[in-house]
């Protein structure tokens, strides 16, 4: 189930011609956890978007298992994400007006009819596992740490082989951040999921198998491996 990541000659060039990302080669074994760090504006988010298949104009190869995202159409990339990728964002990006369960089950809304009930059940189980015992409360009443856990539950609803997180602890205070790191690592480990997490948070980076530093769009000289 786990997917390996194999990136080669990945280049993302902005409309103005500036090179935002230039990754000659990167390989990650299935089920591994990769941390990404680097100064602000270095291209970390751009990298995450690229491996999620969100960037339309990217050259090179972004392969998850046998699937090269760079060679796929936007629609095919969306289908790949729906089936294989869970995403987590710094500011959660929840629908405040919906309950925790409805938020965590959003992927069910556009899934094939036959899979909707299963996705909703998975969302409910994920919330329980993450310690959110009141899934029918509006998320607007949740604390920051709880909201981020709802967004983790949402990312896991489709039982993804890949989890991508962009600064997931940046909006959380220490205690909540630590809990989230533990949750993130355990759901990745237990599900044999490949995890890529962009972060400045040393504790998060410490929990990763490997850390890549990006500077000015390029991998910095080998540091942690």
């Amino acid at each position, binding site marked *: 189930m786990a997917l390996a990541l194999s990136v080669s000659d990945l280049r993302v060039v902005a409309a103005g011609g500036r090179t935002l990302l230039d990754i000659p080669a990167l390989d990650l074994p299935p089920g591994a956890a990769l941390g990404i760090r680097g100064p602000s504006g270095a291209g970390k988010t751009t990298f995450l978007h690229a491996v999620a298949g*969100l960037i339309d104009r990217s050259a090179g190869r972004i392969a998850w298992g046998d699937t090269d995202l760079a060679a796929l159409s936007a629609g095919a990339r*969306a289908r790949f*994400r729906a089936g294989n990728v869970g995403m987590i964002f710094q500011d959660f990006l929840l629908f405040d*007006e919906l309950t925790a369960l409805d938020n965590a089950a*959003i*992927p069910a*809304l*556009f899934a094939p009819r036959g899979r909707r009930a299963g996705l909703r059940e998975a969302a409910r189980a994920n919330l329980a596992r993450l310690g959110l015992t009141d899934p029918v409360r509006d998320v607007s009443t949740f604390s920051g740490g709880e909201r981020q856990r709802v967004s983790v539950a*949402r990312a896991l609803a*489709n039982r993804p082989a890949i989890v991508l997180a962009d600064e997931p602890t940046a909006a959380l205070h220490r205690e909540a951040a630590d809990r989230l790191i533990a949750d993130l690592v355990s759901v990745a480990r237990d599900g044999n999921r490949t995890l890529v997490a962009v972060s400045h948070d040393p504790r998060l980076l410490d929990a990763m198998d490997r850390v890549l530093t990006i500077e000015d769009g390029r991998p910095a000289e080998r540091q942690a491996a």
Partner: protein
Amino acid sequence: MRDLWLGLPVLAQDLLLLLALLLPLGLIGLAVLRGFAPAPLVRAMLWRFRWANALFVLLIAVSVGLGIGLLAQERGLRAGTAQAADKFDMIVSAPGSEITMMMAAVYLQPTSVPLVPGDTYAEIADHPSVRIAAPLAFGDSHDGAPIVGTTAPFVAHLSDGALDGRAFGAEGEAVIGARVPLALGARLEPAHGTGDAAEHGAHEGTEFTVVGRMAPLGNPWDNAILVPVESVWATHGLASGHAPDSPTQLGPPFDARYFPGTPAIVVKADSLAATYGLRSQFDQRADTMAFFPGTVLTRLYTVMGDVRQAMSVMAVVTQGLVALSVMVGLMILTRLFRRNMALLRALGAPGRFVFATVWSYAATLLVSGAVLGLAVGQVATLVLSRVVSARTDIAIAAPLGWPEIHAAAGFTSLAAALALLPALTVLRQPIIAGLRA
């Protein structure tokens, strides 16, 4: 095909037209939503900006409501004026303006017009196919209600016999319209003239007793006091219409030699053919004209129809501008959801799902606006009808009918098509730009 359509009952035609007008909405909805269930997201979007959304719905409702309200009102006005003229098959008067004459005789808005002399009246009244030839006498009023002198047979014709009490049978008796605030048995003294110019006390000593009240007619006669025409003539010192040797006679036949003249004769003939015959006979003379109020109204409507067409063009332009601002508003509103929509696509939602979500949101606002617009239109016509009725005494019922429902349905379908546009723009925005927004 055309025959088939025309052969259908009217209700079936209206229903089918309604379905046809709603069909685009249904088809678009079906095509857009097939396989998706974005309802929870749409509800969240509606709730998040509820005030802006409500304002939006209100704007659409008011513009739709005023449009269909005027449509209904115009129809009601036609029906009301036509119904008010129902009892006036034909009018014979001295030559002049038919519209002025119609306004005077049917809608009781008298102006001074030349009179038809007694021998002409006799000619009409003695015609074998004429059943009623009622002279009218205007000029007096009581407490704002015009006093109209006429004959008992005309009162019976006007009221269709629906009379509380009885018709007048002697001078000094009066029959009142349904809205005259007097009781049976009440006594009233006429004032000379009408409206603000009425002179009280000019007819000292003349008095009428109310002996009957007509059921509501829905026209200005509801507000009138009907008395024997002889009484009006007598009050003004004119001949009584009858030879001096029969001073108590009331109503027809009149004696041409003692007939003071009448501004208009309301004629009712035996048959439609007879009515047409009479018209050509009296319309082609130098001293009279004869016309059908119904025909004059139809001509009036034709003229009004041109005005209405011009108004429709303006209405369409206005609606177009409203639709345009609605579009711009929707674009702005949907921008507020940019990040949410980008999130959905980052989660792998197909473009069509995001499209369906935005379209549902926009369509909900537009359809709610159209439905609420029907209610606004209903209230608008109610208020307009009241105002127009109060000013003209013409009963106007302008309930929303099929044309208005069709208009609202057409607007809804058009709006559903328009709502595709903001959905499309959302789809064209790059996902990462949305995520970074």
